[in-house]
């Protein structure tokens, strides 16, 4: 199984619901979004277009971040059987070599465990022991998108990996909230999965192919792709 995503930039209206959903879902630290939307303006008045390109970790098949991490000997970044690239906060030394190596700029260094307000809310008080390990963030470590591994892992545990990307419970939060259906998640190895079919039908492309990291997020009409 190789989990990946299709983002239809022809449909994306730039609302940032995906960003907000990720913030709720993953205990957002202000300044450290795991997903953000790049807004592009193309052309000159009156022949001008605006395009929205949501960015998050590409969960590369050959992740530069992992290579950098392994190089320094921390071995904090791994890629699992589902193709999800995850940082282990317990092993991360905070060296940020991964930050510098990622061509997509998706890794965020945790300098402080700030919350949305200076006063803590009941949400912030949810104890670490009740949080999934991907949400037990630590100072002086690096964080990034996990493809909502805590949701995917549930599908694995429940023996329902075929429902990943279909059942909202087993699908990343950013994908299920999209108000225009611009995001599809699922198994890239399965030619019959919705994500595979949409990638094919829309001739979707990956960004920054020349870095050779084999990213797993596919976009429609983005220059600089394959």
């Amino acid at each position, binding site marked *: 199984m190789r989990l990946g995503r299709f983002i239809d930039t022809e449909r994306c*209206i730039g*609302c940032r619901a995906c960003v907000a959903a990720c913030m709720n879902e993953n205990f957002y630290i202000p300044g450290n979004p795991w997903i953000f939307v790049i807004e592009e303006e193309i052309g000159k008045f009156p022949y001008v277009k605006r395009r929205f390109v949501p960015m998050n970790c590409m969960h590369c098949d050959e992740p530069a971040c992992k290579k950098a991490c392994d190089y320094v000997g921390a071995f904090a970044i*791994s890629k699992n059987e589902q193709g999800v690239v995850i940082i282990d906060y317990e092993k991360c030394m905070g060296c940020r070599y991964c930050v510098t190596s990622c061509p997509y700029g998706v890794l965020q260094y945790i300098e402080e465990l700030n919350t949305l307000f200076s006063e803590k809310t009941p949400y912030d008080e949810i104890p670490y022991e009740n949080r999934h390990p991907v949400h037990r963030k630590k100072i002086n470590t690096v964080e990034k998108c996990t493809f909502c591994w805590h949701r995917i892992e549930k599908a694995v545990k429940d023996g329902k990996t075929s429902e990943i990307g279909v059942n909202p419970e087993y699908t990343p939060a950013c994908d299920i909230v999209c108000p225009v259906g611009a995001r599809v998640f699922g198994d890239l190895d399965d030619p019959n999965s919705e994500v595979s079919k949409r990638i094919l039908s829309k001739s979707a492309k990956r960004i920054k192919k020349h870095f050779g990291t084999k990213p797993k997020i596919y976009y429609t009409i983005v220059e600089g792709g394959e």
Partner: protein
Amino acid sequence: MKKVTRRDFLKLAGVLASASVINVDLFAEAFRKEKNALETSVEYFKSTCKMCVNFCGINVKTENGVLRAIYPDEARRDYYNIGNCPKGISGIWNTYNPYRVKVPLKRRNPNKGINEDPQWEEISWEEALKEVAGRIAQIKSDDPRKIIWYHGHGKYLLHDGWMKAFASAIGTPNVVHRTTVCEGAKHVADEITWGYHEFLPDLEYTNYLKNMGGNYAEADQWARWLDHATLDAKERGMKLVVVEPRLSNIGAKADEWVPIRPGKDVLFLLAMARVLIDEGYIDKNFLITYTNAPYLIKGDGTLAKDNSGNPLVWDIDINGPVPYDNATNIALEGSFNDTVYANGEVKTAFQVFKDYLTTENISPEAVAEECGLSAEQIRRIAIEFGQSASIGSTINLDGKTLRYRPVAIYTFRGLVAKEYGTQTWRAGLIVMMLVGALDAVGGVLLHEPGKSSEYMNPSSCEYPPSRIDLKKSAFFPHATHDVAQQALFTVPEPSKYGINYTPEMQIFFATNRPFSTSKAELQLEGLKNTYNVAIEISMSETAWFADIVLPDKTYLEAYGYYGGRWVPHARHHTLHYPIVNTYNIPYQNIEILVELAKRAGFLTGSGGFLDKINAEYKFSNPNLDINKTDYTAEQLMDVLWRNKTGQSIDEGKKKGFGGEKFVTVDERYLKGVEAKFKGAGKAKIHFYCDELVGTKNVLLTKLNNVKEVFKEWYEVTDGELNSLIETKLSPLPRKDHAYPVSYRKSTNYPYYLITFKRMYRNQSGYCNINPVLNQVAHDADTNHIWINPETANALSIKDGDAVIIESRVGELEGIAKLTEGIRPDTVAVSYHYGQWSGGYPDWAKKGTWINKILEYHPDMLSGMNSFNDTKVIIRKKQGGEE
């Protein structure tokens, strides 16, 4: 050692690009440190979002009773929203928010002002309720009209029947909602044309959609259906043309962006009409069978009638005038001499319109320069529209043969928030009538057309006005929606408007009205000398002027109802209910009303609040016990929910919506225009708004009462008043409607200023204190002055520069955003930034409070605020400039 340069480096990169060897540990051990149980006691609550007015389905997740996330409700997909917007997702942070008002506050500083510290004192609920109720009781016994109730978002939290009943029990006519600060003129244009308001493109079948001012990828009612339905239609092959001066996010999805000059839409539409008529893209059958286009019009603009008062048409077979219902072969065009009923020289309404276009030489070529577009583009769009209309064709759905006109024009605030908003949208409706697109498959589907035929009659031009907002008065004869921005202008000087009482108390429920509309600082003056109460979740600018602030619960803590947004294929009702109670606030909004009414002595008995609720909602099964003194929100909503859906509130809470249904083909296409306006014996859609001629004649008899105000609003002399009223109340849209006061008078102000809604703030006044909505995009926490680079260059302004923007009302500072997505002669600023209340942190106060400098020339027909009419000067802020 020689430094390695960038050029050396890139050369090296090129050489090595294809020579790499990959050795990656592809299957490293998965991340596992799990020891503790995950997510104990997770619960989901299916409810309804009230972060704006789309009423989307949400699925709220709690962990051990703590709000954890908000997702879309899958069950709502078939009825409305397939996802949620960032506002909906981030609703948690309006509930979990330390900047909320948590306890009742009493003002100690008697002086009210932006720079006055209210010196808030925390008081008990009992003290607060007793004081407010005491005031209400005292004024009620004197003259209840002196109490004004305002709601904006409050209407959508609860549904406004409750508040209307409350005001009615007090005895005041003054309940002021907000439609004229959004899209009120659109509603009025619809109402005077087809007897009710709201319409949607039939996107399942539409092949050509022209959006003129709808901003539904960012804000707007219906946004969360229109967005995905439009994109689906586009994938099916629909062409989307977006006509607007600023490239909105839906403009960004368009096949063609048409950057028209602000205020000139009426010219574009009239030129389209001319092309459609000249090129023969006319649905004669529709115009004759469903509209009053063939009615005969006399020289004075009124309808030619027979001796019994029946409107006449010209029957070609007998070559003479006959009542519509008796005619067999009706002429759409022509000028005639009616000697039978002595109406003299008459023309069909269609002929009047056609002659106007010809006489005034309205054509793409003639209006192109004013519109700031090419004639070719206007003409091409008109022809594409006409061709796509497929005039004369039918489609068979569910065994029924239906009119098929797969073209639509959609609009919202962008086009109508103007001095001539009503007339401009009338032009849009006429264009759609010409091709027969109203209530046709693929056209625009009208919401309950003909429901309120009184909308299509002349106004009585009430004077003196009974209401403080001058609704339906001689000032705003067809303002069937509350004139939101006028009330606070009237309050300090009621006699100027003929009102013979002086307001003493103003209650604001979930609205930041004075902050949100033209001449905002002047609006605040209207709060200085009255006793004010705010029922609000945060310390809004309005609350800053209050004497008592009563905290409210949020939609995640409280009950609330609203009829779900209707869509072409479905209907439903929506409910929200308490999931948490973060700050242990004892009462929600409706309960505050009950408590106030109880203490003020008008809760129970005949004519009391409960009795008025029964009457307002026409409760039948069940109704409220008018002698019960302790109704809770849950009990009240249970009665409402049972009446609306036939289900108990406990049933409603399981889904968050109810009473849902898919509409049949019959309901969708045959119960509206077909049932109400087709053929003999039926009223007709107003191609020609003869009721405006009637209104004009009434208004002219009362002109002395209103002329001083008209002279101020529209900057005319006594001698120009008649012509002004002729223009305002014209039965057909005219080119004069492209020239509002500010454009004619602001000759030294070269740039058009338009305002718009943004996703992150619109439709609820407390989004500025939502940290996720401030951080969700790189520029979400503030607004900018959108300037075209060509203009900016000429003014030596760079992206991010501080600029001064100045209108005839005043000037203020903003930050320039250079973008090709705006006309070079136009600047655009979103209108819900620049908060200043002392109850907000600095991060919630960013941006430019553009409403301060907007000119005020309301649409006389509808009362619509003139949001998009101001002209300005822009200059780079100089060093040392304050």
